[in-house]
């Protein structure tokens, strides 16, 4: 536990020191949102709003994950091996990415509210859907970017591996968010929410079990 916290602190420090990454992500969100605003005008329909939100979050998170293991390459890889084992590393990395993806999706929501208004009726359900979606995204992307990193291959490999695997999470999340927009109550959406929670936990466990095989030389 202590090791996980120390790793997390380390990951956050690294992020702060390389703040240009955070800024470039923010600029991406702003740029894409404004591009949509210019092209579509200020009043997209509810389902278009939801779709566009998730397309922006989707590509933002894929872009983010492509450099998820940037600081663990070369001799740093061996350094990390000495200070923490694979299971600690994957948990810390997943928690860090969950936080990052939540920030990303909340920022996108805020930006969309500014440009296109906020059509969400049931805010609590939308928020929960966003959190669960971000969790599923970060689990899948942590594992696939770990795989891409271990191949020492090109940057597009991570995206190729991740995109088809993200679709189940994406489909469930956007279904929940669409329900939140039209104002379905929490109890009525419990079925979808339960499925997404089960999916998040299942893939989280699977990533946790598989990662040690990846994290060795």
């Amino acid at each position, binding site marked *: 536990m202590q090791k996980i916290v120390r790793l997390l602190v380390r990951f956050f420090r690294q992020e702060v020191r390389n703040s240009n990454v955070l800024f470039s992500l923010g600029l991406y969100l702003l740029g894409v949102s404004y591009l949509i605003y210019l092209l579509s005008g200020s009043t997209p329909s509810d389902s278009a709003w939801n779709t566009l939100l998730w397309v922006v979050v989707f590509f933002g998170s894929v872009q983010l994950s492509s450099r998820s293991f940037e600081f663990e390459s070369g001799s740093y890889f061996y350094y990390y091996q000495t200070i923490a084992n694979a299971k600690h590393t994957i948990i810390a990395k997943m928690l860090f990415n969950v936080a990052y993806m939540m920030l990303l999706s909340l920022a996108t929501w805020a930006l969309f509210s500014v440009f296109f208004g906020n059509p969400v009726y049931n805010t609590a359900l939308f928020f929960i859907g966003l959190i669960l979606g971000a969790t599923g995204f970060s689990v*899948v992307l942590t*594992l*696939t970017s770990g*795989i891409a990193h*271990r*191949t020492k*291959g*090109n940057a597009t*490999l991570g995206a*190729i*591996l991740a*995109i*088809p*695997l993200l*679709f*189940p999470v994406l*489909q*469930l999340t956007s279904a929940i968010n669409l329900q939140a927009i039209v104002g379905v109550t929490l109890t009525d959406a419990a*079925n*979808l929410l339960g*499925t997404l929670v089960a*999916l998040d936990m*299942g*893939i989280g466990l*699977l*990533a946790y079990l*598989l*990662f040690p*095989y*990846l994290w060795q030389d």
Partner: protein
Amino acid sequence: MKGSIYKVLGLLLVAYSLTYGLLTKVPDLPIIEESIRNLFYHVSMWFAMVAMMAASFWNAIRFLGTEDLAKDRRSISLAEMGMFFSFMGLFTGMVWAKFTWGAWWTNDPKLNGTAITILIYLAYFVLRNSMDDARKKARISAVYNIFAFVMMIVFIGILPRMTDSLHPGNGGNPGFNSYDLDNGLRMVFYPAVIGWILVGTWIASLRYRLKALQE
């Protein structure tokens, strides 16, 4: 001799389903008409694909446990065979969809599932080709294979239950209901499934031996 029994059996079952599937009496339904015979050719492809992918998944797990490269060769051979079946299922399905639903491609959960499955396994092949070191390649692609198979099952087995589909048994059970399938059809359909699985296993084992010789 002993090893060839399943090959002969598989060929016989496939030959039986191909010929008898065209000759047997089928229920006369509106819209679908005689194209219901495609059940023997189209649906059996999916059953064979899932069987091949499951065997590939199982070999990937066993590779991680044993570090035996033969398991990895089996895993990739079976995945390639499963990919072949999924393309065949896709083409037979597109022809059928054009006839009964009027379009080559529809926004149906099962079609989406197929598209995702094909993308996932194409990514798996790309991943394998991006590495040279055999042991590392086997380990990393086994990890992806296991994760991908579970995601595929979620996508084709769980999500379609939550949405409506043009396929039989829509919005609920993605498979067949007891009354969807007539007994006469069963007599051809089940042998077709078993036959294709056996033939698929045979071809995968040929590919496996070819890979073993190449290395």
